[in-house]
């Protein structure tokens, strides 16, 4: 049976430019008056010329920024619009971090309820999407802690010694992943990772956070974050090679 597969090629040239977040920058809600400020859809789209401040035309508030301002003022329809804009990204984040649909929906709900409670405090110091993203990550982390998952000591709990950990590779050259990775196989392998590994892998490799940011979020050392990520990738490699063997591909 010809199974349709989405194949991720390994040549880096084929990969889209890394883009951590859809960066919709909202103006600071400070006293200078937000209505005259411009929203940039992407940092790459920010004006590169150095025109003097006074010479810049006062652009009207973009529809997204206007929607945010309305939601901050308590407009329910505007909040619903923000939900529809960001729900996929937040739900996907939650799903990848917890690996369970029902939990991911509950966490998405909690994230948007927190957003509703806190939206008035958003001051535009970062992109709104970044702010919401971090808020959502905190919701997930709090949930995992409540469940009693020790986020950064899972490693020791599950793998008493490094020798029992994900496969290192000392022998002669063996089955290689180089060339292609089946997207579904990778998704499955990520979902099957132990929670601590999955968390680090999603935050670093999928979401694009740096080790120092992850260390701050998870209250661990940078070295610990690097080590956990490495072990997560080793585990994924084992799983993907197993999947390749089952598929009879080389």
């Amino acid at each position, binding site marked *: 049976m010809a199974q349709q597969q989405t194949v991720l090629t390994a040549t880096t040239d084929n990969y889209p430019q890394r883009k951590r977040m859809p960066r919709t920058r909202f103006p600071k809600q400070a006293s200078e008056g937000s209505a005259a400020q411009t929203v940039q859809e992407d940092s790459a789209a920010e004006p590169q010329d150095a025109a003097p401040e006074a010479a810049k035309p006062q652009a009207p508030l973009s529809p997204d920024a206007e929607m945010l301002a309305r939601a901050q003022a308590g407009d329910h329809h505007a909040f619903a619009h923000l939900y529809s804009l960001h*729900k*996929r990204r937040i*739900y*996907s984040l939650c799903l990848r971090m917890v690996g369970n649909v029902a939990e991911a*929906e509950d966490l998405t709900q909690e994230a948007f309820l927190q957003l*509703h409670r806190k939206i008035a405090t958003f001051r535009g110091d970062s992109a709104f999407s970044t702010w919401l993203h971090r808020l959502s990550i905190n919701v997930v982390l709090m949930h995992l802690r409540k469940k009693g998952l020790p986020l950064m000591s899972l490693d020791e709990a599950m793998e008493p010694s490094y020798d029992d950990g994900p496969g290192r590779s000392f022998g002669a050259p*063996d089955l290689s992943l180089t060339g292609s990775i089946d997207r579904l196989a990778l998704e499955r392998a990520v979902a099957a990772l132990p929670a601590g590994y999955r968390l680090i892998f999603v935050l670093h490799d999928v979401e694009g956070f740096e080790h120092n940011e992850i260390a701050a979020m998870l209250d661990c050392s940078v070295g610990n974050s*690097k080590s956990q990520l*490495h072990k997560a990738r080793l585990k994924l*490699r084992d799983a993907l090679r197993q999947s390749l063997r089952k598929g009879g591909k080389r």
Partner: protein
Amino acid sequence: MTGKTMSCEEFQSQLAELVGSGADVLNHPHIRDCKNNCRQLYGDLQTIAQAAKQLFPDEQPEDNLWERIESAIKKGDG
């Protein structure tokens, strides 16, 4: 210990730090001389890291999730 005299085990035990610090691992003396799996291992790990970037969102929550949120907001949970 230099990379040339480093064993595969020693090299691999340092790999997390090397990769995490952004070092040019392909030009590490051990990788250049290794007759075993180290180059392939490193290549595989990089392939996985690259492939992960394409795992960006394509999941959608259930349609009724907004109704749940709306209802919670009305109850005062939001």
